[in-house]
């Protein structure tokens, strides 16, 4: 369990970066780190003996999984702050983080089986982390379904509640899935390893890749929030104009 917390704490450092960078600078830094990450993955990182080249999916797969978890954690925090402070800014963060979280979640659910197929021989094994990702995907798609319409404070409040409940449910789902999975036979070859058994070179590539993904996440968050805010401002403007025409 401590592995998760260390990563989460490391990831916490990123919000401060988000605040001090302006948009263009942020975009350039993100592109550079992403290119560096890719070069590292394909040129520098040694190919794993057992799994061969297909192990390289690991870098993008696990870093997008961590970004997804961070996104849903951010949704939970933003929802709590929105319910408490009732300020729209937190609500836009929750909505944008949720949407980007679902995008990353879909990526994880696609690359997971793609990686599992050559190693385990099956597209899908009810592995705790994969099942948990699937359930999270269901919960947060419901979250987005709840937010489809235009800006309505009541709906935003319901979605905030679901955001909190969804995240509080994660450890419970993980525990129950883990208990449930012990009844199923373990996968044949290698259990989908976390970061254990990584050589130092791989670890470095993975970290760079993680940094690149987080920068990407914050860039997308910034974009998505400006879309929400400008759409909101648009409505207010349109309303004022109608007001003036009528008045």
């Amino acid at each position, binding site marked *: 369990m401590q592995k998760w917390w260390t990563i989460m704490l490391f990831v916490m450092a990123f919000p401060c970066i988000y605040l001090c960078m302006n948009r263009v600078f942020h975009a350039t830094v993100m592109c550079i780190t992403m290119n560096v990450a890719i070069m590292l993955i394909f040129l520098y990182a040694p190919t794993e003996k057992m799994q*061969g*080249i*297909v192990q*390289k*999916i690991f870098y*993008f*797969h696990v870093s*997008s999984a961590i970004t997804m978890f961070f996104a849903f954690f951010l949704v939970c925090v933003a929802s709590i702050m929105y319910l408490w402070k009732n300020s729209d800014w937190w609500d836009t963060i929750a909505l944008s983080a949720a949407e980007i979280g679902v*995008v990353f979640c*879909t*990526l994880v659910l*696609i*690359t997971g089986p*793609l*990686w599992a*197929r*050559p190693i385990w021989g099956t597209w899908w094994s009810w592995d705790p982390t994969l099942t948990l990702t699937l359930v999270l995907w269901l919960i947060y798609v419901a979250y987005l379904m709840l937010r489809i319409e235009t800006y309505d404070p009541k709906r935003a409040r319901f979605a905030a509640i679901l955001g909190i409940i969804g995240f509080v449910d994660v450890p419970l789902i993980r525990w129950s899935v883990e208990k449930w999975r012990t009844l199923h036979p373990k996968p044949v070859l290698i259990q989908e390893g976390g970061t254990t058994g990584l050589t130092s070179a791989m670890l470095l590539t993975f970290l760079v890749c993680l940094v690149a993904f987080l920068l*990407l996440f914050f860039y*997308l968050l910034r*974009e*998505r929030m*400006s*879309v929400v805010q*400008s*759409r909101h*401002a*648009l409505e207010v*403007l*349109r309303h*004022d*104009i109608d007001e*003036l*025409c009528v008045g």
Partner: protein
Amino acid sequence: MKNFWYLFAAYSIIWTALCVYMIRLSQKNKELQVELRNLRAQLERILTK
């Protein structure tokens, strides 16, 4: 190099998905900014009238 296609598929999917999402976002953003500018101009015109 036997599972190369899985690797290629995974990375191409990730890349296309992220790029499509980013492009759609920035397009929507630009569109909204333009509309916002027009509406603000319209508001000015009404106020000055």
